[in-house]
C-alpha cells in the first residue's frame, strides 16, 4: 500500500530530524526538540528509538528541560531497561542537590521508573529523602515508598521503608502526614491483616490534629483512613465524631462524603437516643442536601451514596424529599437517581406532592426516565396504601395517552397493585384489555396474561383473549410462555366447561412441541394434576398468594452495611462490593460496620442496628416469583396424615440457607444467642389466626415462645396445642395457658415450657417439629424447625481425660471438617460465646501461633459432639473438626451444628 508506506517514510525522516535536533549544540534547540518528542509521545507515536539521545539531554541545569526528559523516561524506561540504567547517576546526584525542588523532582521521578535493575540503586537516595530536612521532599518521598512497593513489595519491606513511613505519621508537617497515611493505607490494602497502619489512640490523635491543618486532599486521605479504625468504646467513638463533624462544612464534596462515612460507621457504636446521637443524625442532613447544589458529576456520586444512606438510616433525610424533585435541565443520570430516592422517601405525609411530580415526569421525553416514573407511581401505590386509589387513576390516565411504552410499563405495575390489594381495583380490567394488541414487550405481555388468568371469572371473553396469545406461542419468550400456560390452566379450573380444548392445546404445546425443560416440566405437572386429582389441582393452582412486599429493589442488608463502609468510593457509586470490579489483591478485604461492645440489652441486632431495620424491616417476597409460588405447593413430598402448610418448606429453607435476613420480622435475643421470631402459621392459612414464635433455653429448661394474633373479625377461644412424635421426644410440659378469649386484632404472648420425655420418632430434618393448634374455629397444622441449640444441656462439659479418650476412640470417618468464614473474634470471645450456648471449652492450646479450642456439647438425648476449633491469628476463617460416635444417628445434624457455630459466632 503506497500511502501507508509514504507516511511511514515520512515518519522515519521525522525521527531522523528529531535525532539531529536532540544533539544540537544549542540548549534552546534541544529543549524544543524534546518538546516535539513529548508531543509525538502523547498522540501515541513510537519515539522509543530516540531514547539515548533524549537521555543525553538529562544532564542539564535547566529544570524545564529536565522535567521533560524525566517525563520521557517514565514512559519508555520499561521498554528500554538497559539504557534506563544511564539515568541512575543523574537521579542519585539530583537527590543531593541543594535545591529541595530538584531533590523532590528526582525522588518523584525515580519511583516511576519501573525497571527492576534500577530500583535497588534507588534505595539509598530514597532513605535520605525520607529524612530530608525539607517537608516538600519528605512528602514526595512518602509517596515514592508506595511506588516502590508496587514494583517490589518484598524489597520495600526488607529495607525497612514501611517503618520509616510509619514514623512519618508523627511528622510535624501535616502534608507529610497526609501522604504517609495515603501511602500506608494503599499498601495495607494488599496486606489486609498486617495492621500496617497501627491505628491506636495516640496515632488517631495525631491524624485528627493533622486533619485541621492539611490540604483538602490530605483531609480526604486521613478521613478515609480514620473510617477503618475501630474505636475501643463509645466514648472514643464520640470524641472522634466530635472532631470530624466540622469537616461537614468543607467546600470539597469528597471531604464531606468521607466525613459522612466516618460518622455513619461510628454511629453504630454510639448509644441510641442520647442527645448526642440525635444531634449527630440531624447534622448529617444539611451537608448531604448541599452536595446536590454542586456540579452534576458530584451530584451523581452524592445521589448514589444518599441512596444507600436512606436505606440504612431513613430518618436522616425523611424531611427533605423536595430537594430530590427533578429539574428539567438535570442530566439524565441525575434524574434517574433522584427518582429512585424519591420513591424511597415517599410516605403518607408527602405522597400528594410526590404523585404530582411523578405525573409530570411521565410526560417527559427520555424513555428510560418516563418508564421509571411510571414504575414509581406503581411503587407508591404499593408503599402508601392511602394513595393507591389516586395512583391507579393516574396510571389509567397514562394508559389513555396510548404512548406505547407508557402503557406497557403501567400494565406491569398494575399487576403488582392487584397483588397487593386483591378485590379492590379489578374494575379497571376492561380498560386494560383494550390495550392488549399494543403490548410487544415480554414483561407487559406476561403481566397482562397473568391478569386475565387470575381474574378469568370476571372477564367474559377471557378464553378468546388468551387464545389470541396462543397462536404465536413458540415465538414468545419463556416468561410469557410459562405465564400463558398457568393462566390457561387457571381459566380451565374456573370455567372447565368451555375451555377444555384450549387447555389441551396449551398443554400439548408446552409438553410436546417445546424443548424448554422448564416449560415441559410445568406442563407435565399440570397435566398430571389435572388428570389425577382436579380438586387438589384447584387447591394448588388457585391457592391464595402471599401479599407482595412494600419495598422492592432494596439492597441486601449485609451488602448495604458493606457499602456504607465505602461511602464516597466507586463501590458506593456502583453499589457493588470492590471485589466485583477490582482485580488482584486490592480491595478484596471485606469491610464491616463496627459492632457495639456489650450491648446485649439493646434488643437489636448490632449489624443492622438502624431503627428502620428493626421497626419495619419489610418482608421481601420477590414479586417475580409468583408463578413459581403457585407450584411450590407441589414439592411437599408424599402426603401424610398430618396436612402440612407451605410454611414448613419456607421454614426449612430458612435454617439452612443464607437468606435469613430477608424473612426476619423481629429479632430476639436469648443469652447471647440469636434466634429469629418467625411466622409459623400465617393468618391466611388459619382463618385469621397468626402464630409466630421462637424456641429458647432458660435456666435449664426449654421454652416455646409464641405470639398468637387474631386477624379475623370474630373472637377465638378454646385453644389447645399438641405435637406430633419427633426426634427428641419434645412435648409440652403444661397445656396451653390461654384462659381468655383472643379478641380481633389482639395478640397474646405465651411461653410454653417443654420437655423431652415424649415418644420419639426420627424426623427429617432431624429437628423438625409438627404442631397442631386447635381453637373454636378449626384445627390448624404447621411444622417448624427447633434450633438445635435448645437441646444443648447444661452438663455438656466433658472431663478432660474422657474427652481425650473419646476423641481418639471415634473413628476418622465420623469426623467432619468445615470452615467458618469471616469471623473476627479472638479465641476467648469465641469460647465465651459458645459457653453461653452450652458448648463448653475443655481445653485451649496454642500450637505454632494457632489457637486450638477443644469443645464439647451434649444433646438432651445423651448424644455427645466433640469439636476442635482452629483459629489462626489474622485469618478470619476458622477451621472446625467435629466428631461424634453416633454419627449415623445424627446424619445431617452435623450440618445443623455447623450452622449453629456460624450463627453463634456471627452476631
Amino acid at each position, binding site marked *: 500500500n503506497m500511502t501507508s508506506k509514504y507516511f511511514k517514510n515520512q515518519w522515519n525522516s521525522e525521527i531522523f530530524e528529531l535525532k539531529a535536533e536532540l544533539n544540537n549544540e544549542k540548549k534552546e534547540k534541544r529543549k524544543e526538540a524534546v518538546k516535539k518528542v513529548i508531543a509525538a509521545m502523547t498522540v501515541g507515536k513510537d519515539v522509543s528509538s530516540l531514547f539515548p539521545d533524549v537521555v543525553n539531554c538529562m544532564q542539564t541545569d535547566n529544570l524545564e528541560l529536565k522535567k521533560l526528559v524525566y517525563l520521557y523516561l517514565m514512559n519508555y524506561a520499561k521498554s528500554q531497561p538497559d539504557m534506563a540504567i544511564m539515568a541512575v547517576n543523574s537521579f542519585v546526584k539530583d537527590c543531593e542537590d541543594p535545591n529541595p525542588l530538584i531533590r523532590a523532582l528526582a525522588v518523584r521521578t525515580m519511583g516511576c521508573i519501573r525497571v527492576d535493575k534500577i530500583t535497588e540503586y534507588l534505595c539509598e537516595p530514597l532513605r535520605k529523602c525520607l529524612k530530608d530536612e525539607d517537608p516538600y521532599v519528605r512528602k514526595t518521598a512518602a509517596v515514592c515508598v508506595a511506588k516502590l512497593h508496587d514494583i517490589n513489595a518484598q524489597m520495600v519491606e526488607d529495607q525497612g521503608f514501611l517503618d520509616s513511613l510509619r514514623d512519618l505519621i508523627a511528622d510535624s508537617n501535616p502534608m507529610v502526614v497526609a*501522604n504517609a497515611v495515603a501511602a500506608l493505607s494503599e499498601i495495607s490494602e494488599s496486606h489486609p491483616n498486617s495492621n500496617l497502619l497501627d491505628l491506636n489512640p495516640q496515632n488517631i490523635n495525631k491524624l485528627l490534629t493533622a486533619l485541621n491543618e492539611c490540604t483538602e*486532599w490530605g483531609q480526604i486521605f486521613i478521613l478515609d483512613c480514620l473510617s477503618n479504625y475501630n474505636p475501643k468504646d463509645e466514648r472514643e467513638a464520640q470524641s472522634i465524631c466530635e472532631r470530624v463533624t466540622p469537616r461537614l462544612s468543607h467546600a470539597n464534596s469528597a471531604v464531606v462524603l468521607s466525613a459522612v462515612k466516618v460518622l455513619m460507621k461510628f454511629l453504630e457504636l454510639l448509644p441510641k437516643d442520647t442527645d448526642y446521637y440525635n444531634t449527630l443524625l440531624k447534622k448529617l442532613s444539611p451537608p448531604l442536601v448541599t452536595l446536590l447544589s454542586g456540579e452534576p458529576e458530584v451530584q451523581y*456520586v452524592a445521589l448514589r451514596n444518599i441512596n444507600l444512606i436512606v436505606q440504612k438510616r431513613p430518618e436522616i433525610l425523611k424531611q427533605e424529599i423536595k430537594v430530590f424533585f427533578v429539574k428539567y435541565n438535570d442530566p*439524565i443520570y441525575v434524574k434517574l437517581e433522584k427518582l429512585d430516592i424519591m420513591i424511597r422517601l415517599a410516605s403518607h405525609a408527602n405522597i400528594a406532592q410526590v404523585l404530582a411530580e411523578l405525573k409530570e415526569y411521565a410526560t417527559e421525553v427520555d424513555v428510560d426516565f418516563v418508564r421509571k416514573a411510571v414504575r414509581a407511581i406503581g411503587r407508591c401505590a404499593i408503599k402508601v396504601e392511602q394513595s393507591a386509589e389516586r395512583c391507579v387513576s393516574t396510571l389509567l390516565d397514562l394508559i389513555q395517552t396510548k404512548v406505547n411504552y407508557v402503557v406497557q410499563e403501567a400494565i406491569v405495575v398494575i399487576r403488582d397493585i392487584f397483588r397487593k390489594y386483591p378485590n379492590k381495583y379489578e374494575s379497571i380490567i376492561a380498560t386494560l384489555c383494550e390495550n392488549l394488541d399494543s403490548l410487544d414487550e415480554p414483561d407487559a405481555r406476561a403481566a397482562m396474561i397473568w391478569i386475565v388468568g387470575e381474574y378469568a371469572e370476571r372477564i367474559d371473553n377471557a378464553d378468546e383473549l388468551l387464545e389470541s396469545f396462543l397462536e404465536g406461542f413458540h415465538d414468545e419468550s419463556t416468561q410469557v410462555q410459562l405465564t400463558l400456560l398457568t393462566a390457561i390452566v387457571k381459566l380451565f379450573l374456573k370455567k372447565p366447561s368451555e375451555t377444555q380444548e384450549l387447555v389441551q392445546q396449551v398443554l400439548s404445546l408446552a409438553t410436546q412441541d417445546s424443548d424448554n425443560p422448564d416449560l415441559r416440566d410445568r406442563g407435565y405437572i399440570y397435566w398430571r394434576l389435572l388428570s389425577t386429582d382436579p380438586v387438589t389441582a384447584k387447591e394448588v393452582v388457585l391457592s391464595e398468594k402471599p401479599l407482595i412486599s412494600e419495598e422492592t429493589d432494596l439492597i441486601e442488608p449485609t451488602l448495604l452495611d458493606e457499602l456504607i463502609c465505602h461511602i464516597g468510593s466507586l463501590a458506593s457509586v*456502583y453499589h457493588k462490593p470492590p471485589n466485583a470490579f477490582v482485580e488482584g489483591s*486490592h480491595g478484596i478485604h471485606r469491610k464491616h460496620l463496627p459492632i457495639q461492645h456489650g450491648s446485649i440489652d439493646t434488643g437489636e441486632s448490632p449489624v443492622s442496628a438502624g431503627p428502620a431495620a428493626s421497626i419495619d424491616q419489610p418482608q421481601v417476597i420477590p414479586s417475580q416469583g409468583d408463578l413459581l409460588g403457585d407450584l411450590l405447593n407441589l414439592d411437599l413430598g408424599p402426603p401424610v396424615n398430618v396436612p402440612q402448610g407451605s410454611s414448613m418448606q419456607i421454614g426449612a429453607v430458612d435454617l439452612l440457607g443464607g437468606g435469613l435476613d430477608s424473612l426476619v420480622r423481629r429479632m430476639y435475643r436469648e443469652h447471647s444467642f440469636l434466634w429469629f421470631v418467625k411466622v409459623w402459621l400465617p393468618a391466611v392459612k388459619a382463618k385469621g389466626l397468626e402464630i409466630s414464635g421462637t424456641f429458647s433455653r432458660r435456666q435449664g429448661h426449654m421454652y416455646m415462645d409464641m405470639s398468637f394474633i387474631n386477624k379475623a373479625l370474630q373472637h377465638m377461644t378454646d385453644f389447645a396445642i399438641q405435637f406430633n412424635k419427633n426426634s427428641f421426644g419434645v412435648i409440652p410440659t403444661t397445656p396451653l395457658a390461654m384462659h381468655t378469649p383472643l379478641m380481633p386484632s389482639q395478640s397474646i404472648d405465651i411461653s410454653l415450657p417443654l420437655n423431652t420425655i415424649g415418644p420419639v420418632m426420627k424426623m427429617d430434618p432431624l429437628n423438625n417439629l409438627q404442631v397442631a393448634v386447635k381453637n373454636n374455629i378449626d384445627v390448624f397444622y404447621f411444622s417448624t424447625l427447633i434450633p438445635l441449640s435448645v437441646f444443648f444441656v447444661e452438663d455438656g462439659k466433658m472431663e478432660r481425660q474422657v474427652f481425650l479418650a473419646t476423641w481418639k476412640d471415634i473413628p476418622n470417618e465420623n469426623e467432619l471438617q468445615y470452615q467458618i468464614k469471616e469471623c473476627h473474634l479472638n479465641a476467648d470471645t469465641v469460647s465465651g460465646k459458645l459457653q453461653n450456648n452450652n458448648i463448653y471449652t475443655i481445653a485451649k492450646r496454642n500450637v505454632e501461633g494457632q489457637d486450638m479450642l477443644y469443645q464439647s456439647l451434649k444433646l438432651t438425648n445423651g448424644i455427645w459432639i466433640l469439636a476442635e476449633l482452629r483459629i489462626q491469628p489474622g485469618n478470619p476463617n476458622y477451621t472446625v473438626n467435629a466428631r461424634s460416635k453416633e454419627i449415623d444417628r445424627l446424619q445431617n445434624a452435623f450440618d445443623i451444628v455447623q450452622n449453629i457455630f456460624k450463627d453463634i459466632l456471627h452476631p
Partner: protein
Amino acid sequence: MIGGLFIYNHKGEVLISRVYRDDIGRNAVDAFRVNVIHARQQVRSPVTNIARTSFFHVKRSNIWLAAVTKQNVNAAMVFEFLYKMCDVMTAYFGKISEENIKNNFVLIYELLDEILDFGYPQNSETGALKTFITQQGIKGQHQTKEEQSQITSQVTGQIGWRREGIKYRRNELFLDVLESVNLLMSPQGQVLSAHVSGRVVMKSYLSGMPECKFGMNDKIVIDKQGKGGTTDEPGKSELGGSGKQSIAIDDCTFHQCVRLSKFDSERSISFIPPDGEYELMRYRTTKDIILPFRVIPLVREVGRTKLEVKVVIKSNFKPSLLAQKIEVRIPTPLNTSGVQVICMKGKAKYKASENAIVWKIKRMAGMKESQISAEIELLPTNDKKKWARPPISMNFEVPFAPSGLKVRYLKVFESKLNYSDHDVIKWVRYIGRSGIYETRC
C-alpha cells in the same frame, strides 16, 4: 488512586495523556474514546466501567477530561480533582479549549506532575503553584536558598494558599454576595420548591498575613447574642447591613482557609485569606425567600392546530430597586409553524431553532407587572407522542440578596504590620440572579 489522566478534543483525539499507574495501558485511551466519546447514545453516567477499568469524565465546552483507575478510589475526590484541574488550567491560560491545550501542553504536563503524584492529589492551589511553575520555565535556578524553602514551606504548609511578604500600598477588599434563586412553581402558583444557593466571593488585596473575621445576619449567631444580652456587636452595620432581621441558613461550606472547627464550636468565620479572588463560602437557604418575580402562565389549546399563550410577570421587591437582564423563555411545540406575539414591554421573538418564544426586558422596577400574549400555529402531526410542555423559565438580575443575607462586618487584623482594620477600604455588593427559575404550564 487515579491511574491516568487523559484530555481529548471533541473528535476523541487525545491531546494530553499522563499515566501514573502501571495497570493502565495505552488501550485505556482508546477504550474511553470508543465507548464514551464515540458512543451513539447520550452519556448515561459520568462514571463508566469498561473491562474492569473505571473512567470518570467531565466536559468543558467540547473538551473531555477523563481520569482512569482500576481501584476502588474515592469517586468524589476524583471529580473534585478534575474540577480543580480545570480551575488551575484556567488560571494559567484562560479558557479550556483545544488550541490553548495544544499551545500549553508542556505546562500542563508539568502541572500534572506536580498536582498528582502516583495518582494522589497534591497541593493544587494556584497561588502556591504559580510561585514555582511558570510559563517561562521553572524559576528554580535563579532562586536564592531562602526563596526555595519559602516555596516548599508554602506548598506543604498549613497556609498553602497564601505566601508571605505580600505588600500593597492601599489595603482594599471587595466582597460580593452572589445569590442564585431557584424556583419550581406549579401552574396554579404553588411553590413546589424554592431555595437560594449563595456564594460570598472576595477579592482581597491586603498586606502581610492578615487575620480576618466575617460576620453576617446568621440567625443562630443573632439569637445567641440576643440571649447573652451583649449590645456591642462588633462593627455593627459597618458595611451597610441595616435590617435587624436575621436569616436561617440551612447549610454552608467554606474555602479551606476558614477554620472549620472554630465555626463548628463558635459559629464564627475566621481565616487568613488567599491573595486575590476566591470563594469564601457557599450557603443555602430555603426559608423566607424573596421571590423577585412571579410568572402566571395561561395556555389554551384551540383545536389541534393552534395554541394561545398568555404570560404575566409580576415583580415583587421595593419599587426603588431595578431588576435587569430579564428574559422569559416560553417553550413552543416542535411542530410549531408560526407565532404571533404581542408584548407590553421589551422585545419578544420566536426562535424556531430553540423551540421557544424569548421575551427580553432590559429593566423593570419593583411592584410592576407586564404581559405577553402569543398565538402559536401548529402543523398537523401524526406523532402519538404528546408534547412534554416544558416549564416556562426566567432569567434576571436584581441588586439585593433574595435570601435576605446581610453582611454585618468584616474585620481585618494584622498584628505585625502597621495597618489597622480602619485603614482597610471595604466594598460590599449584593447581586441576586435567577438560577433555575421555572413555572410549569
